[in-house]
């Protein structure tokens, strides 16, 4: 299960740093076919909030 999600900016776009409750960490693209991004969407739909430090 996802614990935290943080937006990570590149020069022209962004990805996500996802930390799961078991401690594993993934760098996830903003891509609807990616299973981790699909999990982020589900997590947000269930009340999770993405931390956005800004570009």
């Amino acid at each position, binding site marked *: *299960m996802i614990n935290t999600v943080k937006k*990570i900016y*590149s*020069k*022209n*776009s*962004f*990805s996500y*740093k996802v930390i*799961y*409750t*078991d401690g*594993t*960490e*993934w*760098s*996830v*693209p*903003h*891509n609807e*076919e*990616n*299973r*981790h*991004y699909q999990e982020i969407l589900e997590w947000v739909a269930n009340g999770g909030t993405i931390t956005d430090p800004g570009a």
Partner: protein
Amino acid sequence: MALNTLPNAGLTNRGYPSDRLVTPIIINGDMSVAQRGTSFSFSSSSGFTVDRFDFERTSGATGDCTITQESDAPSNTGLVKSVKIAVDTAETPTGGGNCLFQQKLEGFNVAPLEHGQSNPPSATLSFWVKSNKTGTYSVQVKAEGSTGRYVLFDYTISSANTWEKKIITWVGDTSVALDYDSSRRLRVIWHLASGPNDKVSPTSSWATSSIFQMSSNAVNFFDDASNEIYFTGVQLEVGEFDSTSIPAFPFESFANNLNRCMRYCQKNPQTSSGGDYKVTASGFADGASLALCSINPFSVEMRTVPSLTSSGSFRIHKSGGASSVSGVTIDSDTSGSTSFTIRCTTSSLTSGQGVFLEQSNDSDAHIILDAEL
């Protein structure tokens, strides 16, 4: 072209017509490829095990177990490896809780099942199983088209600690097509335990449901911490077969099997053998504390843009020295399904320097790129 995708001249012992393509629908059914490792612990978590096979638990179940790749397989079959699921803590799932082992199939790979057509062929699932816990178990074939559909079958483990081959046949679904795309369109699910909400009667006719369904006849495999179950030799064939007509397991070379797995997962470096400083990617310094390093191109195009996770110690090797890496992330500007750029947080670089991302005295340090379903 991989050998196993050629028309099967010389392979007629598998029982196919001469013009039949024989690329297996199930990938890594012999459980031989294990890029992520050979032992996995789960507790209130889900995840992949050997390549293409994953354990999933849902709310209402804990799924406290250890899954390992084993050198234990039925004799006289050519199979060498298997997967063992060993319960660590006994439980009875509640509500809609589930514990299950599965392979998820991509839409591009299930077109031969012809779902949504007026006269789809039969399909046959065959696998080997062994457990100390005898009794009735169930397999769900779960189609994920515009409407969720499933068939659900019982199978029986008759003798404890003895390899048994199971064969299950069904007719394809005429009602709901499976999109021909790179998304998840079919699952083959071996149920291990479910809460009461998800237990239903088995059915060989396609029924509508988008949730996991375990047979109400099935045992609770998670009822004792000493329970263990093995699987191997999983094959899904187009056509109706029985124990005498089922084709032999569709063995691929290890390299072909690994290549097919790499569409969904790529480990880099691939093995821990060799030196302690194996290079993972190469690139340049983009300022004093950031290196951009690319794996370009992938040896196999991945299903979609992958996620990245890393394990172990890495460093940036530059002219005249090295700097430790404190973090790696995807560079979303330049990554895709055929190439990948890693942003490496480090120090003491000179902008424009050429660099390697390499292991730092850690032969098992690696990056996993994941494009699983």
